[in-house]
């Protein structure tokens, strides 16, 4: 297998690696460098300014708001989404009526149907989902408030995205709506591969289903839950939160900066305000937050791998 090996390796790696280095790696390195300059992005001239951008960032109230919101996204969204998904997946896989002679634990009738339907939002673009909900949240003609009117709650007509206290939660709810289905399907696949004997043994030992869930199902699914957690957190800090906040909220990021997130702030500083260097500084902060988040989840979640 040695003949012409290196020529082959070089031939096969050059194009993919070159493309990747040029469009991904090189810009990353550049942006860390730019964060120490006063580059506007509009002209090619710039000078080194040391840590000025970082000092400015620490005094920037909007930056702190965006950091706060991004952290809330990264911490709360995975908890809610994964919690809800685990609950629904457990119901799908364990909630079945016991049939005579059948296994002790069985899935509900129509479990395949539920999984198909729950997965719908996952195949839609987050941009389309965001647009759809921007209209659903419309206080006058939106789907949500008119449902409230229809059930007699005429007094409860929130402004949703127009209310600084509600807007962030309204946006987060959309991300939960669009990602739960993916995790339900993911966890269902994991639950289905847990041998039925384990459940039977637990039930014979007198465990009820809640105990079974926490003592049997969850520990055996832990690896999947953990990688799902990291995956969801990275999405919530990055592309997904950018799309929903940029499309749905007024401003975007409003009202009154109540929904702005770091990734949106980077975009606005670079491409709206012509402060490319400062934008990369916030971007570096976002990188630090993302890596710290992944490291913390991996470390907290580490436990012995269970074989079954």
């Amino acid at each position, binding site marked *: 297998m040695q003949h012409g090996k290196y020529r082959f390796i070089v031939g*096969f790696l050059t194009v*993919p690696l070159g493309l990747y280095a040029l469009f991904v790696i090189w810009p990353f390195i550049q942006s860390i460098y730019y964060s120490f300059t006063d580059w506007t992005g509009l002209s090619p001239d710039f000078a080194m300014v040391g840590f000025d951008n970082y000092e400015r960032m620490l005094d920037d109230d909007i930056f702190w708001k965006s950091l706060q919101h991004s952290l809330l996204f990264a911490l709360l969204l995975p908890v809610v989404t994964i919690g809800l998904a685990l609950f629904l997946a457990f119901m799908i896989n364990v909630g079945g009526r016991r049939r005579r002679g059948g296994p002790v634990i069985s899935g509900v009738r129509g479990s395949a149907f539920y999984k198909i339907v729950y997965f719908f939002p996952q195949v839609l673009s987050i941009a389309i989902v965001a647009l759809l909900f921007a209209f659903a949240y419309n206080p006058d*003609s939106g789907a949500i408030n008119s449902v409230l009117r229809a059930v007699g709650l005429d007094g409860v007509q929130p402004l949703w995205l127009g209310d600084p206290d509600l807007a962030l939660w309204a946006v987060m709810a959309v991300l939960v709506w669009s990602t739960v289905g993916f995790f339900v399907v993911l966890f269902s696949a994991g639950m289905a591969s847990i041998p039925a004997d384990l459940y039977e043994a637990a039930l014979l030992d007198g465990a009820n289903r809640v105990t079974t869930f926490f003592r049997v199902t969850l520990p055996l699914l832990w690896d999947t839950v953990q990688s799902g957690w990291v995956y969801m957190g990275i999405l919530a800090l990055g592309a997904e939160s950018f799309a929903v906040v940029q499309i749905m909220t007024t401003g975007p990021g409003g009202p009154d900066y109540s929904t702005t997130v770091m990734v949106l702030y980077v975009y606005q500083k670079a491409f709206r305000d012509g402060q490319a260097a400062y934008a990369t500084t916030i971007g570096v902060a976002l990188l630090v937050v993302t890596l710290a988040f992944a490291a913390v989840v991996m470390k907290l979640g580490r436990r012995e791998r269970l074989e079954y």
Partner: protein
Amino acid sequence: MKTTETPAPVPAESGAAVTKAGAPGGGEPARHKREGTVLNVFSHGILVIWAIMVVMPLVWAVMTSFKDDASIFGSPWSLPDTLHFDNWSRAWTQAHMSDYFLNTVLVVGGSLVGTLVLGSMAAYVLARFDFPGNRFIYYLFIGGMSFPVMLALVPLFYVVNNMGLLNTIHGLILVYIAYSLPFTVFFLTAFFRTLPSSVAEAAFVDGASHTRTFFQIMLPMAKPGLISVGIFNFLGQWNQYMLPTVLNTDEDKHVLTQGLVQLAVSQGYKGDWSGLFAGLVMAMLPVLAAYIVFQRQVVQGLTAGALK
């Protein structure tokens, strides 16, 4: 979850059965049966509610796309009086949905083929050949999965601009490929490692070159992996919003997602909401239809990475 707990203290006649020592006594099946039924009703209830919550916004969008503007505002949940197909034709021609579709097909078609070819080339070399720097290059690719893309986008805009690729279809294709490589390489490297090496060795002994072995033997063997990662990339690239928003600002070159967002802004001034909803549904339905037809493959493709 309360309902599942209540039966536990009840069975006085079969108290022993609940304890750890007890073999299933006379009352045991009855207890399980009742618990099973209550749980069954409860879990179906929850599952149906979530299914409704997923489907209703989509149904609402489809209904709205057939209504005229007056009834969209007057009664958001009423059925359309007649099916206003003119909304759809207006969206398709006047609102440039046809152009957006064409652009998206071109961009995604080009990037999907490029991603699969370049990704499998790199992954094959990294999975099958020992050479200095192999691990380093592998982790360089993998690292791209957890870095916030927005950080790189600020300098990337200028890199792409300087190369004269800004607002071009082929420029967008190259960037899509570069940002799809991390996951593709990660997934396919794992896949190529699972393939038996004996076939490739036999081909090599028979005088086939490395390149020929790859294209004629290994690639066909890797078909299941290519399909999974292909579906994953297809949906990711079709639904991509952040990259085109930054790198593709020319309205004639817009892809579907940004075209729709653009439409939402401009139709806001014109007040043509029905046209906008028709556009939204138009963008939604093909993906949903494809998902329902290829349901199993899509779910496999999207969850494959997380289960690894």
